[in-house]
């Protein structure tokens, strides 16, 4: 009985993500998809810069402040989106109908509006009522958007823990709050972390959209470089490689974290 339930709930996990797939932590071979992509990206990036410093090196050296802005927006958005997603996830499975309604409405509304439209809305449309800087608008829009996606990830992760766990813990005298904190969440974390990590990586890629609000991120740096030199091919090649290297490194970080969380699982197998 418990087993079938477990299987069912495992099947219920919906990975709501458009991030790059996290490298498999059990993959120990030297050549795998991740190492191959990273090597290719780094070799081509630095190869291009060494062989043709003009214009490739010039393009690369034009970017650092853009990379800083991109990271700044991503990190700040993660700081807001993850707690927001967690609260939303809890709201979605809450027994309290009010919280459930609020959380579900939020997810439905935000999920149905493209991020680009949200950015325009917060920065340009709402400027009639209050004005926030480009970077703040970016962080607000991205956090709100990804908070909704992550809410679904948290909900699915928590829902995937078999009911028996809650029943056992409640019968041992834990309160519902204690059950959630000490029993459900530690187990749910393992299912939740990879997709949340994916969302964070997707978030970094989506920060490329903020260049529409005159925020000087990597993408905007590239566009203004192209605007003066008209080297479309060269510039966007470098930009693609820079984004690729960053996201590959991040996905490795997520995969290491995942491996740490699953330490005992892998040992016992």
């Amino acid at each position, binding site marked *: 009985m418990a087993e079938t339930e477990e299987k069912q709930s495992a099947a219920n996990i919906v990975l709501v993500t458009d991030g790059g797939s996290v490298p498999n932590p059990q993959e120990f071979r030297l050549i795998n998809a991740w190492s191959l992509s990273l090597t290719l990206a780094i070799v081509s990036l630095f190869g291009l810069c060494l062989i043709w410093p003009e214009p490739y090196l010039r393009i690369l050296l034009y970017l650092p402040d853009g990379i800083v802005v991109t990271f700044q927006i991503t990190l700040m958005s993660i700081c807001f989106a993850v707690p927001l997603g967690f609260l939303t996830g809890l709201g979605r499975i809450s027994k309290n109908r009010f919280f459930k309604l609020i959380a579900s409405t939020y997810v439905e509304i935000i999920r149905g509006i493209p991020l680009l439209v949200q950015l325009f809305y917060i920065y340009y449309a709402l400027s009639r009522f209050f004005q926030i800087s480009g970077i703040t608008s970016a962080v607000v829009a991205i956090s709100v958007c990804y908070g909704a996606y992550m809410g679904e990830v948290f909900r699915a992760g928590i829902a995937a823990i078999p009911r028996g766990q809650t029943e056992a813990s409640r019968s041992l005298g834990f309160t519902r709050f204690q059950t959630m904190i000490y029993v459900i969440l530690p187990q749910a974390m393992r299912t939740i972390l990879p997709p949340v990590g994916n969302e964070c990586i997707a978030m970094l890629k989506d920060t490329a959209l903020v260049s529409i609000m*005159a925020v000087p991120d990597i993408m*905007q740096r590239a*566009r*203004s470089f192209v*605007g*003066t030199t*008209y080297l*479309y091919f060269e510039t966007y090649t470098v930009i693609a490689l820079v984004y690729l290297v960053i996201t590959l490194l991040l996905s490795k970080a997520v995969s290491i974290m995942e491996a740490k969380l699953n330490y005992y699982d892998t040992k016992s197998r």
Partner: protein
Amino acid sequence: MKTSLKGLLLAAALFCVALGGLSCQAQAAEKYVVASDCTWPPFELLDENKQPTGYSVEFLKAVAKAAGFEVENRNIAWDGIFGGVATGQYDIVASSTTITDERKKQFDFSDPYFEIVQAVILPAGKSIKSLKELQGLKVGGQIATTGIFVVRDAKVGADIKEYDDVGLAIQDLVGGRIDAVICDEPVAKYYANKKQDYKGKIQLSLRSQEKEYFGFTIKKGRKDLLEKLNRGIKIVKENGTEAQLIKKWMGD
């Protein structure tokens, strides 16, 4: 008798049509695709039917008529407009492109068809006397336009904000998030004087000294097209069409 007359007329009519068709085929005018970024009034904008119009677009149409070719207009985002002409997605860029040395290295330009200066727009009630006074201010403009280049090259220490189109920059100026907007002078005039929403909120404050010239941009080495454009521009300037267009689009 009557019928034969009818038949004769019919035959004559058919003959004429056929002849017309033939002669049409003989001089089948070449059709060129024209790209304009329609966010730059009064030079390029969209009319009520979402078709490109404006000074540059109509000027080129007049040129085409004079030089005997046809054009098909497309609305293309400014950001990649030079890339598209380089790869041959369209033949001509008619989008208020200033002829600069940097651009001339990559593209060919027709003879100049319009002369402008850059202008700085400020909120109503403020004014500056030189670009130097932009130091420390947030100056907006359309990404990769000569206005941005002018502020950047002046090295006055302004915080430059590059927007996707100049309308968004002006929206931000009216909102108060930036302190100034730089763009081509006729565009500045259009926004400051002709847009009802912005009346009394913004004003044109400073004009740059250096003159810029607009040219139609084409892929490097297309001599035939360049020759046609220049021939047409010459005719349009001489036959009074230019004056009409200036009156139509720039007149107060």
